[in-house]
């Protein structure tokens, strides 16, 4: 059995250098479409037309992306002659549309934040990416972030999934059991807007319609580093992404 000890030592440190330096390993993020200026209005129109969830809005020669709606189907990259511009990064955390101030946790939490995760109808992808934060490649413990088994000791409620009707009660109970000061983070486009599941008799259409959300991490699913960026934003160690430009008439 001692071989496990040597096995672990021999592998050495595997963790990413993020946030000290950007992670450049291929495949850490699928990237996402971003606002694009085309050469003609037709190209912008065709990009908007191919989007199955109306996340792309064409205005003149430009096409804007509402990241909270985007479900990463890649149709605006693969299925049209002039594809949308692609952002290969992962620092995507934003504030909910109606919120102007970043509700960062007080400085006492900056090196120690306990996270309660609730799967509120998730497809498994976002939850899986959240779990990856515990593996040695991301190792969020080194940054002072911990998953906690009880809401009584949690500082951040991390919600994945569009909030299914059967999970609405357990989600609210979890939130009510958390002590203040607390924050709520919606991870994934389903938790932000309902995503592909939208609003129905079984889906609330996002965590925002049930609870006050402080931070949003768009993506379908957001890769682990995007979620890690969200946690760093919540503790004031990174700032939110500012390039979130949504066309007029949409919030």
């Amino acid at each position: 059995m001692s071989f496990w000890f040597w096995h672990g030592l021999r592998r050495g440190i595997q963790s990413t250098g993020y946030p000290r330096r950007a992670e450049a390993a291929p495949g850490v993020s699928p990237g996402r479409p971003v606002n694009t200026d085309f050469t003609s209005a037709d190209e912008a129109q065709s990009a908007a037309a191919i989007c199955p969830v109306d996340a792309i809005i064409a205005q003149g020669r430009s096409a804007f992306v509402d990241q909270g709606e985007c479900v990463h189907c890649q149709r605006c990259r693969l299925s049209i002659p002039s594809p949308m511009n692609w952002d290969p990064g992962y620092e995507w955390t934003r504030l909910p549309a109606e919120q102007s101030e970043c509700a960062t946790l007080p400085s006492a939490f900056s090196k120690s934040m306990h996270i309660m995760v609730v799967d509120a109808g998730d497809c498994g992808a976002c939850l899986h990416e959240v779990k990856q934060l515990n593996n040695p490649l991301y190792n969020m413990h080194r940054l002072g972030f911990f998953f906690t088994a009880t809401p009584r000791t949690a500082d951040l409620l991390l919600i994945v999934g569009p909030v299914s009707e059967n999970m609405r009660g357990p989600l609210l109970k979890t939130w009510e059991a958390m002590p203040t000061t607390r924050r709520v983070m919606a991870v994934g486009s389903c938790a932000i807007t309902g995503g592909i599941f939208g609003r129905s008799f079984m889906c609330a259409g996002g965590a925002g319609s049930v609870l006050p959300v402080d931070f949003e991490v768009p993506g379908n699913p957001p890769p682990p580093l995007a979620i890690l960026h969200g946690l760093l934003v919540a503790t004031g160690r990174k700032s939110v992404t500012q390039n979130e430009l949504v066309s007029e008439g949409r919030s």
Partner: protein
Amino acid sequence: MAAYTSPVEGDGRTGLSDLTAAVGERFGSVLSPMPAGHGYVLTLSLAQPDSLPSLCKFLFWDLGCQFGGMIAEEHASLWQQHYAFLLPGSGWIDVLLSLPIETTTVPSIVAEVNAADWHEREVEDMFGIHFEGHPRLGDFILHDQIWREGIEPMRKTFSATQPASGRQLDLEWEPLLIVGDPGSFAMPVGPVYDGGLGESLHFLLETVGEDVIRALPRLFYNYRAVEKIAEGRCVSDVLLLAERFAATSAFAHSLAFCQAVEKIHSVEVPPRAAIFRVLICELERLRHHAGAIAAICESTALAVSTAHAAIIEEELLRASCVFIGHRYLFGLNVPGGLSRDFGAEECKTLLLSIDKAEKDLRILENRLRYSSSFLDRLEDVGVVKVESARYLNLVGPIGRASAQHCDLRKACPYSGYERYVFDIPCETEGDGYARLRVLFAEATQSVKLIHQAIDALEPGAICVPCEGSYSGAALGWAEAPRGAALHWVSLDEKGLVERYHAITPSFSNWHGFHEAAEDFAFQDFPIILATFGLSATECDR
């Protein structure tokens, strides 16, 4: 498998013609002639429900068919139930029960085919059909403490977008307990448990002290009514739903869905696309199994091996992202083929990652085999006996750890699987360690298949478009990482989805989970849960 007798001698396997003859001899008088189609090789059409249980029993127990699932459909003037049975080596058999639309009661087949239990409960909950003889109906998808009785969401008259008017929180509601002995109590687990990192589901572990006596899972916390919101939408929209209701097996489910649509359109997928579909199916299986192995290691608190397996999984996720552009393989399958082609260089890069993953898995397997404290937690724990696995009709790696050989890639090949050389690893012990060995062995076979697929590649088209409005219905299937997945798609004359039903391996196997968990100690429960490796969200839809 006491009642397993084959009516034909020789290789011991019933052929389709033998089956047709045997069924005709016993049930000829009640069957009405019906041409096979919709992806089935044989349709046995019943206009009267009386002989349904005995026909299903004959197929399942006497002819050795596997039970696939039950699909209910509401038509304008007809109520239909398809019972899908698989005759290994031949294909799917449709036992079709057609009744007037006013039908409210249908005989239950639970006493004959136990695996139909949850299918009937689902139809009762969602359509309001009563199954006569079923021991426990109600409180299934629509949880009784939230939804009042009498709501039938899958009926055509029910609008998916209407506000949830059926909700009324019943504070008096109490779960049904089975163990009534003095001193017995129930330990609740979930729906939010394991720091929220477990998928939402609920267990009441009933006990009188040390051992878990009853462990019935309560699911559908993640029910998002995928099948209801799919109705009336175009195929490309529903494809997004088929792909996204269970992301850890997204490619297999989107493949089953696409194959159903392709059958309706009578479209043959180009050979190059079929080969890439096999390749990516196996990539998904490899990644899923690495993740399942990591979860088993974690449940026994063997930290270094958990880290080792988790790194393999993450590296495969990254390799998928480099190859396809998405870590969970979204956006690749389209009806008619794939949305993009791949170059030789890309395949070479993928192969390097695959080979590295296989090497790392082999190291892990060899180390685990000599970790006695780890093996002590798995061996003879969570045992599912061979005969139990048969009557519960367990599928996938869990079934195969209890000698259920059925694998759709061999039993009913799709996407050209019949052209590949590979084994279906099986064990007979049915304990946690057998399930772990099956996962390792299947991962090895997947790597073998990926190599064969890349060698078989030939230039050509990657997609033939499925355009135009075709109406019709068809069954598509795929062997998902957790087992058999069946997707039933019915399109109306405008080409919009009229009925969509997904039968998932997690749905089939959660039904049998209690068999493994009962009569074991509390501390074994998380380990049994991990060796089953089921997904709640894949079951819930």
